[in-house]
């Protein structure tokens, strides 16, 4: 409460001195003064309070082994993070990167950078897998955490992570952080002859890395007339793009006509059926509804139609 307690008493004293004239001000500091809302039940809190701290507070009872984690990871995580945690496309690299923090291109992974294993457990539980957050059970979360620690060579392959042994995991970069000490630079507001004009070297932008189409005349007229299956596009972006944008895990890349010609030939009904019910093909596996079971059959079909439109 810091100052508020002090302030509270100060105001209270004042109020008493003023013979209750300011009593309402004083009690404005009282817990429950406004009487709004109701006391949250333990059950309500338990359902939402899933956070975990570095000291282990918040970890639920449970356990998971590296070997169980391997299967879960390969099915639910590898499509983005890579089989060995190396990261697909621009998705985060999870493993490796040791001794790269001073490199020109550091790799900030769980092993090389993250200071606490609790962060991995907490984030996996609350936000992963990307398209189906909070779908993992407690034991699955332990197992996947164990496996990612294993990929970083922080535990052995027979390790079983539990609530009890959680704090025994040592993170290599635990001491790599320090509290904000800024301002760390001190410029002076020099006004005249602050540097030698001859010393100025102008370094231009690297061409081609930033979008510039909108700076060109007439750009905004482009593509205005194009009709797009908006619903399908929306579903696609939210649930399918993760794999189909980059051709992850054998998924046919959207927009790559070659990959789609034969598939389109089977007919939209077949494609929609496979997408809805799941399909094991030569190139890879399509999980039912791409793993997002909250989608309706119509949603998935619209997304398939969008992908076909984009890939012809």
């Amino acid at each position, binding site marked *: *409460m810091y100052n*508020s*307690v002090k302030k509270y008493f100060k105001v209270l004293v004042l109020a008493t001195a003023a013979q209750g004239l300011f009593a309402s001000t004083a009690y404005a500091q*009282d*817990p*429950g003064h406004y009487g*709004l809302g*109701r*006391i*949250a039940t333990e059950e*309500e809190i338990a359902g*939402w*309070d899933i956070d975990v*701290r*570095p*000291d282990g507070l918040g970890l639920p009872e449970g356990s998971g082994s590296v070997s169980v984690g391997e299967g879960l990871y390969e099915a639910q995580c590898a499509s983005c993070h890579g089989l060995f945690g190396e990261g697909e496309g*621009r998705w985060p690299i999870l493993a490796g990167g040791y001794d790269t923090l*001073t490199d020109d291109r550091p790799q*900030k992974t769980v092993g090389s*950078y*993250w*200071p*606490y294993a609790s962060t991995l457990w*907490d*984030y996996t539980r*609350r*936000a992963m897998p*990307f398209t189906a*957050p909070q779908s993992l059970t407690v034991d699955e979360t332990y197992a996947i955490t164990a496996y990612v620690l294993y990929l970083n060579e922080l535990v052995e392959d027979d390790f079983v992570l539990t609530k009890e042994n959680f704090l025994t995991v040592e993170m290599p970069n635990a001491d*790599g*952080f320090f*509290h*904000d*000490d*800024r301002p760390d630079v*001190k*410029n*002076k*507001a*020099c*006004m*005249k*002859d*602050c*540097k030698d*004009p001859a010393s*100025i*070297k*102008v*370094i*231009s*932008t*690297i061409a081609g*890395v930033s979008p*510039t189409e*909108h*700076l060109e*005349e007439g750009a905004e007229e482009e593509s205005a007339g194009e009709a797009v299956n908006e619903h399908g596009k929306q579903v696609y972006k*939210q649930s399918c*793009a993760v794999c189909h944008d980059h051709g992850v895990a054998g998924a046919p890349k959207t927009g790559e006509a070659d990959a789609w010609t034969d598939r389109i030939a089977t007919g939209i009904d077949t494609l929609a059926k496979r997408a809805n019910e799941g399909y094991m093909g030569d190139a890879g596996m399509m999980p039912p509804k791409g793993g997002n079971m909250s989608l309706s059959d119509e949603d998935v079909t619209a997304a398939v139609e969008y992908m076909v439109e984009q890939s012809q």
Partner: protein
Amino acid sequence: MKNLSEEKTADLLKEIKTEAAELPQKKRRDFMLNGLKLTAGTALATSVGKVLAGEENLPPNIPTWQKTLGRGVVSVPYGQPSKHEADLVRRTVEWLTADEIASISMTPLHKQKGIITPSGLHFERYHGGVPEVDPDDHRLIINGLVERPLILTMDEIMSFPSESHIHFLECPANGGMEWRGAQMEALQFTHGMISGSEWTGVKLSTILQEVGVKPEGKWVLAEGADAAGMTRSIPMEKAMDDAMIVFAQNGEMLRPEQGYPVRLFTPGWEGNTSVKWLRRLEVGDMPWMHREETSKYTDLLADGKARKHSYVQEVNSVITSPCPESPAKRKGIMQLEGFAWSGRGKITRVDVSLDGGVNWQQAKLKGLVLTKSMTRFSMEINWQGEPRLLQSRAIDDTGYVQPTYAQLREARGTNSIYHKNAIHTWQLNTDGTVNNVQLG
């Protein structure tokens, strides 16, 4: 076309083309467009020959929009910008992120004419997309080290005493692409991860006093109801100082992209600490050190150590006119304009240099000068087509002077990603175009 013969149309088009050839590019395009509209028009047959093509709306002629009635009230129940402002939109740089669900877009600062960013142009940053929260079913739970753990509906949150404050909100990665050198060829991308709004809500201290924080409570975890379950740990000092639980922005309920129906707002601090779609606050005795305060939003320095809890957005400024999107259009007297801001307090001064930082002159602060708010500055210059290296340097009421790239790099290296607030340089070329450059 019904009143124009084919021959006349052909002549007219030829005339337009000849006239247009002598105009600069932008003008030429407008000219051609207007000319083409004219040939398609129906009411102009009699004036063809007298009116110079493309100037039928200019004096002494009466513009077409004055000769018919305009549309009536509520033809657009929620007002929209003019169709002529269609390029006034948020934009993204696709390669910055793996996909567009966990991504960022930038505000078109080159067209922002005051310290308030229109809500629909406020930059976006999500880690799991924009959730569609039903306000009737949204709840805020406050638990942890408190006397009275509470669950609040939106109506209840909005029944606490509320306040309104104008503040900027900035992503700490604003300009982060430029640590190693100039990359972005537009102001929108170099500085567009900042926006300004009037925020209305309840002081977080009011809510915390209502639940009664236990003496050992030193930190507050804020958690969002989005797919990322976004979390940040906020120290109690900030929570009891100026942090707010905000439900409105610029006079209306928050936009979904900004956390509808309720978000935390931490004035002057890195944007992600203002957790959106706020569903829970937990009071604890230590920080949670979650993903967005360890793996991300920590500042890796050259020696391999990283700064954590680097919350404050330090002094920054940028010239918005001229800039790459808004080149100098004519020689002569020119109003050079820009924005300055500081997460520590008020802007007290902005200096401008035309020669790459050799000499500086004090600019004028314009309009409202508020704490932790975008602040306008301007300076009148007489430009006769000389090549210039334009810079702005802001100072806040703590006396902090916006640093140079050299100073920042010396202190931090180039892998910090976040909190890049160096003096920016625009190269104004003799033809009026502007490039993003850095000075070695």
